[in-house]
């Protein structure tokens, strides 16, 4: 009795103190994150809202006419040149994310399941090329794929072709190859992380129950690594649409992408509202495409299980 009586005051006191303590924990956390949060708010959210606002305005020589109009969107969506560029950009980014993920998966799988003690070293080895200058990597692909390039002279040296091929550079496939290379690490890392998280005893259980390697992979490993595949696709597909360096250096006439048009509107073209409308349209369409891809993959994974 006495012990309980003695025990209760501090307990009730603690309960009394607990609520303000919790509040202050939330307040402290919020205060601590607020500089970073404000930075993102002021330099990310506000600018994007400004772009959205501009997309409804009109360029009037050097000034901006702020009456609401949908004219920019009409141009962005119906003008054949922008429509074609947008469709081509979406197609390229779909191809790039497909190839990047398909080529990256076996590597992530190999490192996760057969990497042994050297997993860290493998990951380091894979990330190194991506820290070299992005411009120079694109330039290097130009050197490799060019008319007098490494690949052509190599193939001629081997006697496989008699004349340098012009089919390698300045087209869509050159853009796809370069971008597939550029995004490789961004696909390998998330897939690797999701493979690492798979409980290995599940695979043992499947083996014990008589599943072979292929069934085991299709019914356990692959569905459980879907989160990694999904984040790889998001991280590759959306930024790919916004690249204008690769198309400019290796794309030639057939490889021009929507980002080149956006860049032109903010540069020489100097039609900010149209550039803004193109940006918003591109963002919206690529987000929708990424969301659709993710939904398809998720439902496919559910069916496999």
């Amino acid at each position, binding site marked *: 009795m006495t012990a309980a009586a003695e025990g209760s005051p501090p307990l009730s006191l603690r309960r009394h103190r607990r609520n303000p303590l919790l509040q202050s*924990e*939330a*307040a402290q956390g*919020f205060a*601590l*994150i607020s500089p*970073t*949060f404000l*930075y*993102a*708010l002021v*330099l*990310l959210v*506000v*600018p994007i809202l*400004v*772009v959205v606002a501009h997309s409804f305005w009109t360029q009037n020589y050097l000034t901006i006419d702020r009456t609401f109009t949908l004219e920019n969107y009409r141009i962005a969506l119906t003008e054949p040149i922008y429509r074609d560029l947008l469709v081509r950009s979406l197609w390229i980014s779909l191809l790039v994310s497909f190839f990047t993920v398909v080529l990256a998966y*076996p*590597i992530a799988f*190999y490192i996760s399941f*057969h990497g042994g003690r050297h997993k860290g070293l493998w*990951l380091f*080895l*894979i990330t*190194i*090329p991506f*820290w*070299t*200058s*992005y*411009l*120079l*990597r694109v330039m*290097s692909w130009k*050197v*490799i794929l060019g008319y*007098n*390039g490494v690949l052509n*002279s190599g193939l001629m040296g081997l006697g496989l072709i008699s004349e340098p091929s012009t089919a390698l550079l300045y087209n869509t496939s050159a853009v796809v190859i370069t971008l597939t*290379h550029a995004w*490789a690490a961004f696909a390998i*890392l*998330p897939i690797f*992380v999701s493979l690492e998280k798979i409980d290995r005893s599940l695979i043992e259980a499947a083996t014990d129950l008589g599943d072979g*390697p*292929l069934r085991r992979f299709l019914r356990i490993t692959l569905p459980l690594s879907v989160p990694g595949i999904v984040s790889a696709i998001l991280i590759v597909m*959306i*930024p*790919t*649409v*916004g690249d*204008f*360096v690769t198309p400019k250096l290796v794309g030639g006439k057939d490889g021009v992408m929507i*980002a080149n048009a*956006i*860049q032109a509107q903010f540069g020489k073209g100097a039609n900010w509202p149209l550039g*803004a409308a193109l*940006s918003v349209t*591109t*963002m919206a369409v690529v987000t929708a495409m990424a969301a659709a891809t993710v939904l398809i993959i998720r439902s496919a994974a559910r069916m496999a299980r």
Partner: protein
Amino acid sequence: MTAIRNLLSRWLPAYAFVYIVFLYLPVVFLPIFSVNTSASPKFPLAGLTLQWYRDLPNTPALIDATRNSLMVGVSAALLSTILGICAARAITRYRFPGRRAINGLIMAPLVLPEIILAVSMLLVMLQLGLSLSLVTVVLGHVLVCIPYSLSVLTSGFEGFDRSLEEASADLGETAFGTFRRVTLPMVAPAIISSLLVSFTISLDEFIMAFFLTGTEPTLPIYIWGQLRFASKLPGVLALGTLLLVGSFLLLTIAEVLRRRAARRTQNTGGAFA
């Protein structure tokens, strides 16, 4: 079944090898053609020379661009790491409403097309009447670097045992004293690693710099200008080789420190986990 297993165990390492070759293919040509006497990059090499490297220090525009890039890189690394520390600490240590949403917002530049980030910042800067300069480039770079800093720092802070801090507080240290004497030494490697990673990103960042730079070019802007002239290619390749070596050294240090931090806090997750 054994056939498939054999196939896997034999072909997977071979595939890994081919894939690594693919990843390194564009990288190895930089140093190779940077010592070629001829300006056009093709095999066989015309001859070996270090001429292009000797020319580099005698190019004033390059020296200026390097200085600009170093200033931008150091500022961006410091700012993004400070902002990253605040966010990573708040996310790993405190629970508060909207934590996930705020984290998502801060990480968003990682999955947004960079050109859209760049043009939207450009619009705001011009609307506010700010003239474009290295400062605006730094602001853009910090936005791009924060997600990387935050990932590195969160993984450094996560495994960190909170009871150590509680013990320190119970023993009478102030909140600041605890941070300085207990928290900071544990997380220092993650902080240095975040500094190095964001510096390296800023050093190589092109798209933000392209839109937000004024009259002072950074290194990638300088390189972009040089790429138009075929005769300038060897010099650019030599410069690229030096940058490659520099980035490699910085990132090796960052990786070693990150691993040490991970070992110290018993956290085995990678930087992107």
